[in-house]
């Protein structure tokens, strides 16, 4: 998004200090529009053809355009403008007509309205006029209510025009034919780098997941031939039988401990992805399979054991691969990439590593947001609003199909093993401006982002994340604390940047010595 997009909120900020700037439209225009307050919202809506029709009950073209006035077919969304804290418009198209309207009430409830077919700009204009009138009335006769009016913020950011990766849009979701084109006669993926790049930009078609995920999760090496993969599959099947045997032995040796672990696994299995038909219903055998995989994982990784959230990450693997052995090994490798694989004995807390990277990435890419966090209590730097994003890899932030595209983007590990952190920064970048505009304290930042869950634009966020990664790879100098962010895939850096320059950004603990200082 451009820097200038917040102009209307800046007007509001001026208003806070008493310098009311009417801004949009002249005085006549405002006086003219005050007349709309003489009628009820329903009357106004009828007169101006703004009634919302329930599309489920109307099939007539005329009706669906909102011209019906029949009782029973209309549904009104009404909201008391005086009882709100902010309204924010997010445009999703370059024409600035479609997008989302996010309304926050004073007690931090959020209502998100989607405008898929235009009209948002017109509504935004009305709100802006209303806001100006209100600001004027406050200035002239004082605030009529105890509620401070200055908190109502109507922002109209322009459609995002951030820097995109130049290769953005070159790829389509990968199909079977395209996958085949990457294989040689023996079934070897010759150029795995290009495949991962393809998936990074466009992910894979729904029906390709079963085939591609075991590669992305390194169960099958890219360079393996079809024959070798058959052998690997057989070996893994046998290995899994041994894991099963080990499980029975282990559980027999310490029955109380394992019964308790099994209990906590079962508690979560029965409430994981129940809306997915694959897991729906009581006594669904797939639930039993999920339980077995999680117990086996805990048996084989006793230092990690079972942690809530694992079932959420396993469920899509199991329902996609529909095979216990495949799902187990994909899950095991998936866990290696997540914060779940931190062990209490290990020296490294992976969550803390991630948060530390993220803090520095926000500082680098979104300095205003970082400053806002710095103003809050120290707890704000815990970045609580991202914990669930990282733990469940955005599974509860986007509808599942989109969340799985995010997973694929992360698993592709194109240029970085921390793509999920670029997604975090992208969300902050696209949706975080409102946090600053509303001056939300650290606890309400959490509430704000959790209200946006399932309402964010996944395509936009991913595009932004790729743009940020591209930007990062082109930086002349990188803060030393982010040295490890893209270290994994050196061969993919731009050829003209054979080595990276780092500088010390002074965010070390006292004891650490920075080689770049």
């Amino acid at each position, binding site marked *: 998004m451009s820097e200038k997009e917040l102009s209307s909120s800046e007007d509001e900020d001026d208003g806070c200090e008493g310098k009311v700037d009417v801004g949009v439209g002249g005085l006549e225009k405002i006086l003219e529009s005050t007349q709309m307050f003489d009628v009820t919202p329903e009357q106004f809506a009828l007169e101006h053809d703004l009634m919302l029709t329930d599309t489920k009950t109307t099939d007539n073209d005329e009706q669906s355009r909102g011209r019906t006035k029949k009782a029973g077919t209309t549904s009104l969304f009404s909201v008391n403008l005086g009882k709100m*804290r902010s309204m924010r418009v997010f445009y999703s198209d370059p024409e600035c007509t479609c997008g989302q309207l996010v309304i926050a009430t*004073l*007690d*931090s409830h959020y209502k998100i309205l989607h405008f898929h077919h235009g009209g948002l700009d017109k509504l935004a204009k009305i709100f802006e006029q209303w806001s100006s009138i209100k600001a004027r009335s406050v200035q002239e006769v004082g605030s009529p209510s*105890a*509620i*401070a009016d*200055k*908190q109502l913020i109507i922002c109209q950011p322009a459609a995002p025009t951030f820097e995109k990766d130049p290769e953005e849009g070159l790829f389509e979701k990968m199909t079977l034919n395209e996958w085949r084109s990457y294989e040689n006669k023996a079934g070897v993926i010759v150029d795995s780098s290009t495949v991962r790049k393809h998936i990074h930009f466009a992910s894979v078609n729904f029906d390709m997941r079963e085939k591609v995920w075991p590669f992305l999760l390194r169960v099958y090496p890219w360079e393996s031939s079809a024959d070798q993969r058959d052998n690997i599959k057989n070996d893994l099947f046998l290995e899994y039988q041994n894991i099963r045997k080990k499980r029975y032995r282990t559980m027999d040796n310490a029955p109380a401990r394992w019964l*308790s672990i099994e*209990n*906590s696994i079962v*508690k*979560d299995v029965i*409430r*994981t992805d*129940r809306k997915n038909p694959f897991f729906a219903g009581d006594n669904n055998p797939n639930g039993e399979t999920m339980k077995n995989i999680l117990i086996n994982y805990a048996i084989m990784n006793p230092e990690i054991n079972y*942690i*809530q*959230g694992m*079932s*959420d990450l396993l469920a899509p693997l199991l329902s996609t691969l529909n095979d216990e052995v495949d799902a187990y090994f994909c899950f095991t490798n998936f866990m290696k990439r997540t*914060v*779940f694989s*931190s062990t*209490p004995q290990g020296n490294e*807390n992976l*969550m*803390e590593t991630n948060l530390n990277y993220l803090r520095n990435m926000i500082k680098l890419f979104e300095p205003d947001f970082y400053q806002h966090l710095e103003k809050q209590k120290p*707890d704000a730097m*815990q970045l*609580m609003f991202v*914990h*669930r994003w990282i*733990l*469940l890899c955005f599974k*509860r932030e986007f509808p599942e199909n989109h969340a799985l595209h995010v997973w694929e983007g992360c698993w592709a590990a194109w240029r970085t093993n921390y793509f999920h952190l670029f997604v975090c920064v992208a969300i902050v970048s696209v949706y975080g401006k409102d946090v600053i505009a509303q*001056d939300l*304290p650290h*606890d309400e930042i*959490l*509430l704000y982002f*959790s209200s946006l869950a399932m309402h964010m634009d996944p395509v936009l966020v991913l595009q932004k994340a790729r743009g940020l990664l591209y930007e990062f790879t082109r930086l002349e100098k990188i803060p030393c604390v982010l040295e490890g962010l893209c270290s994994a895939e050196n061969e993919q850096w731009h050829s003209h940047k054979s080595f990276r320059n780092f500088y010390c950004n002074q965010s070390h603990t006292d004891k650490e010595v920075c080689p770049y200082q």
Partner: protein
Amino acid sequence: MHPVRKRSSIYQDVDFSYTVMILGDSCTGKTCLLIRYKDGAFLNNNFISTVGIDYRNKLINMGDKKVKLQIWDTAGQERFRSVATSYYRDADALLLVYDIANRQSFDNVRDWLSHIKEHGKEAVQVTLVGNKCDLPRVVQADEGRRLAEENGIPFMETSAKTGQNVDRAFLGLAERMIKMKYGFVPGGEMADTIAVNESKSINLSNCCPIT
């Protein structure tokens, strides 16, 4: 108690503001208690495990005073407990929940209590809650009551499903926090905190020093 923020919200003119944390084993109904209290609804057949940390604000009137409760819902991610520890530190009150239909969740209450002693505020108000009292019980009410008495904390049985005692559990916490600080409860005490079907009086002297 935290200083009330000067912000434009319905919370700007509250008289008291407290942080409450709901703790307990997984699947004891912590989120359901919160949703029942906040919205008066029960999450039937739509349940999902809590991951990360979440909270809701609830505004209550006590006499002529407005009290804001910021209620934090926690998850069972022991591994990331360091995250929650700072919230223990800040919490004015804790609702420690077990499931009366699950023996293990009750057995773990002692672990939770020692964890609270270690990480919680010294003056933190703890209430022991036996949830799911709509289900066939495995843990007798007397067991819960005895454990609470041993630890000098109030006890009640609730049902997030029927709503039984849910308001009283939270209201009781608010009353005790205010009473501890100011020595009286505006509007008089409404929630007798020991509540297992029948009401019982309790000696609050050990948790309500008059300041």
